[in-house]
């Protein structure tokens, strides 16, 4: 293995994979261009918590969408935009065979779909008097499966769940699928939908503790191997230049609020060591920045390791809590901020359940 050396302690191989494209539906707009314009205009515009003008049946058509929930609609539509960006009529998956591409989607419990289904079991004549077409969407892997069906992606299909760390866990799963030969490329990302049921359940979970107002959105990325370098920038097999290279993804666990800071410090130090990145190379950090003590501890841990690099929190400040999608939106904000610089951006998260996590990306 040429990857020995840095890889000895289980680090990333020398040829770390690259992100070559991304797409989004967010409260700031449909598509990357609208989202980035909206991000620049934050302050002068005030976005709502939902993706505007997003009706699943209008966006995707009336065929095959009758029983599709909003999360699946967002994931299928975002994946379509991503594939429009990298594919052609002859090569719809960017030059890859359908069985060589995986789909890895970060998602949370489909609270609305499950509760709608359960309401029918309690309010109709018989408990089993439910609509069978509503069954598939009550399963958390429905949206990822829909992405595969709609876009003909036959490689590994996985769904990943882990509170606000979801998108970082999803990135790591996608990275390992590619690294271990299960797929040559992975369409990965994370989705969260807004609903009254989710708002009510999450509010009850917080029970008076501070949080951000719930919001929704989906980001999908294309992750593939870097095959060459051109002009100091890694380029993937199909000639697509990297927008980012995944240098490290790390996690840790805290059991009490007083452990968060140390857990994140350890996590960041392991990531920097694994990626052989010096703290001076860090351009900016996009933290989850949850209101109250989790965010304070996160900022303290960041300051301990990387000093006073700028903290990017504009997306969440403007949109709200995109739940499982949070870290994906944090990555997008980093990409927007650091484009073209070849510097390292860091995403951090401290979820309310016990996870800390970070990703180091070299941004091009």
């Amino acid at each position, binding site marked *: 293995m040429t990857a020995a050396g840095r890889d000895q302690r289980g680090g990333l191989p020398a040829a770390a994979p690259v992100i070559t494209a991304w797409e989004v539906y967010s409260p700031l707009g449909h598509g990357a261009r609208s989202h980035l314009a909206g991000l620049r205009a934050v302050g002068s515009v005030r976005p709502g918590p939902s993706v505007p003008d997003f009706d699943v049946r209008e966006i995707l058509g009336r065929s095959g969408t009758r029983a599709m929930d909003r999360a699946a609609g967002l994931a299928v539509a975002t994946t379509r935009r991503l594939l429009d960006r990298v594919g052609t009529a002859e090569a719809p998956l960017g030059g890859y065979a359908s069985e060589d591409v995986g789909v890895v989607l970060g998602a949370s419990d489909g609270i609305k779909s499950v509760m709608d289904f359960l309401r029918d079991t309690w309010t109709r004549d018989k408990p089993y008097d439910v609509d069978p077409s509503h069954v598939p969407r009550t399963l958390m892997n429905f949206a990822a499966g829909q992405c595969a069906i709609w876009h003909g992606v036959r490689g590994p299909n996985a769904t990943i*769940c882990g509170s606000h760390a979801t998108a970082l866990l999803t990135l790591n799963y996608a990275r390992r699928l590619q690294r271990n030969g299960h797929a040559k490329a992975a369409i990965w990302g994370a989705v969260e939908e807004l609903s009254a049921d989710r708002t009510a359940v999450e509010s009850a979970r917080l029970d008076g503790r501070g949080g951000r107002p719930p919001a929704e959105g989906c980001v999908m990325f294309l992750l593939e191997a870097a095959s060459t370098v051109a002009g100091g920038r890694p380029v993937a097999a199909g000639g697509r230049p990297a927008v980012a290279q995944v240098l490290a993804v790390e996690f840790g666990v805290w059991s009490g609020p007083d452990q968060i800071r140390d857990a994140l410090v350890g996590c960041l130090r392991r990531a920097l060591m694994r990626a052989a990145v010096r703290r001076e190379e860090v351009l900016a950090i996009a933290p989850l920045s949850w209101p109250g003590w989790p965010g304070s501890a996160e900022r303290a841990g960041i300051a301990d390791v990387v000093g006073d690099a700028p903290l990017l929190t504009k997306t969440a400040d403007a949109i709200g809590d995109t739940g499982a999608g949070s870290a994906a939106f944090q990555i997008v904000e980093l990409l927007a901020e650091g484009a073209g610089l070849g510097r390292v951006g860091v995403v951090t998260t401290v979820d309310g359940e*016990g996870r800390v996590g970070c990703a180091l990306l070299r941004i091009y």
Partner: protein
Amino acid sequence: MGHDPAIATSARRRVVITGIGVISSIGTGVAEFTEGLRAGRSGARPITAFDTAGFAHTNACGIPDFVPERWISRLNPGELGRATQLSIASTILALRDARLTPERLRDQRALIAVGTTYGESGELDRIVARQVASGTPAVDKPAAARSASSRLSIDVARELELTQTEAVTIPTACAAGNYAIGYGFDVVAGGEADVALCGGADALLRMTFVTFYRLGTIAPLICQPFDRNRKGILTGEGGAVLVLEDLDAAIARGAHIYAEVLGYGLACDARHPVAPDQEGIARCISQAHSNAGTGPWQVDYICAHGTGTKANDVTEAAAICQVFAGNLPPVSSLKSMLGHAMGAASALAAAGCALALENGFIPPTINHTEADPEIGIDCVPNLARPAELRVVQNNSLAFAGNNAVLILGRFGAGLA
């Protein structure tokens, strides 16, 4: 397979199973579970977990005597949903079986990967039931706190007070256990963690029962996979967690080695949200063989997904026959004994495969009365069969076309 993996399979570390934790409807712990599989015990019993008034069929494979307080000490079991309780308890059993203490794991790099189908949807049912009964939108706060499926993984780490741990829930429905074990294999084989605690957990839920009842797939009394007279599934519950370690580390600490994980494959049908697809399953089996460096002729036993429904059994058997052609090994279904424990199912089956390798027997397909002429396999009817197994294959298929196939080998069988 034409893949060009970043890690050559030859450069992987070898990964072995050094601990097994099982909570099932036919027994808790390795000894009871092994004896249950060998004896062909049935976990079917009347449902007590929820009110079955109005349903014509009322059997399932529940675990009414599961007492979470027996295993969970640091966290308060009352603040955990049942799937999370099963996940934690199975992990604790697995660690004890592996003779690993939480203290020893505390500063190691660990992966906790827990597969599930319904996660903590049972808590959402509590919330809805109370809303309907009270006629108000008020949300039951303790149930809301328990209702996050993301907790199935992280609460294991919190119970054990681990620190350098990646805790992920993998909700890929009824193939989730195999997904989680496959992920643990990759992470240990690639040197990215010292130990992986991976498997699956699901609770017996009213929601699951209603779902499969409505789909017309609940059997009246017993589950009869591959039988001409099969009438569907029995829902079930359970937890199963494997401890995976690098072979050298396992040998260095004198660990007992149940079996070696040789590899796994994933493939998506990309066709139908609920119906299985022969081509997708066959492709997944071939992917698994390729990843494990084995061929169909080396597989001595297939632990089938084998739900006992018309759609599954015929399609799965056809896919197996397509890949194995003239080399068809015995194929049995543990679901005849355990029911369908959803996201735990393939983890329970993986535990069963490891124990079959270790103890030299093939678990039977119980409740067998008459072979289905459409299914040309040897389903090991009713009685366990002594067999010196070297390589076994564990199939799992899920809604959304999520297929996962795991390949285990007897350690020291000269395969690697």
